[in-house]
């Protein structure tokens, strides 16, 4: 008899375990999304970003999440009256979404920048540009981060 009996306590423990896992998963997901949205809102002052003008370059698949090359460029005349003030770069799946904020001036000539970043896992890289006139533009790209072999 004993071997077919599933004790109530075991069943409860199993159930609770499963529930905890789901809950945690949900919470982290939600938190990360909020943190990214919050960072965008703080940067734009609540303005809703439009599409276009900003180009975000990143590999489709990154060999190693420790060093992922990215570049951004924003179309702009880069004059005193009409230029890109700054570009916020976020990674929505990292423990903290912030990556970097680039600040430009008309003397930059063009609003382009490139760097290498860390991505904890497969996720979206987001770039938001803020123009002199207050308008904001956003671009997003998914980067798949492979799990290394012995590379880890």
């Amino acid at each position, binding site marked *: 008899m004993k071997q077919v009996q599933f004790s109530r306590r075991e069943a409860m423990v199993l159930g609770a375990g499963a529930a905890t896992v789901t809950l945690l998963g949900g919470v982290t997901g939600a938190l990360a999304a909020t943190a990214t949205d919050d960072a965008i809102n703080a940067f734009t002052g609540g303005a809703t970003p439009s599409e276009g003008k900003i180009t975000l370059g990143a590999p489709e698949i990154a060999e190693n999440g420790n060093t992922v090359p990215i570049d951004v460029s924003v179309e702009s005349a880069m004059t005193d009256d009409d230029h890109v003030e700054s570009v916020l770069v976020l990674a929505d799946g990292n423990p*903290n979404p912030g990556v*970097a904020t680039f*600040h430009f001036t008309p*003397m*930059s000539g063009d609003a*382009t920048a490139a760097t290498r970043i860390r*991505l904890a896992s497969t996720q979206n890289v987001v770039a938001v540009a803020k123009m002199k006139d207050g308008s904001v533009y956003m671009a997003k790209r998914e980067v798949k981060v492979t799990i290394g072999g012995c590379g880890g």
Partner: protein
Amino acid sequence: MAKVKPRVKVPKKAAAGDIVTIKTLISHPMESGQRKDKKTGELIPRKIINSFTAEFNGAKFFSADIDPAVSANPYMQFSLKVPESGEVKFTWVDDEGSV
């Protein structure tokens, strides 16, 4: 800790009005504050370069606020529209305020 050493690549010559590409690389571990010491299990304190500034003849033309998600030995590439001949100055600041 290892010495912090920058490398910069700026074209030596450019006509006034040209837009030139500038590249910089600096040795720095960019300790994120997220890693644990394998022996003690304690978090290794964050120590990163948190800001970078580029000036031309004293006028700032590019800067970056940097988070721990920028890779070790930070690389930055950006542009400058050269108004006249002059000098480009770069400043990196880390969490301890050293350059």
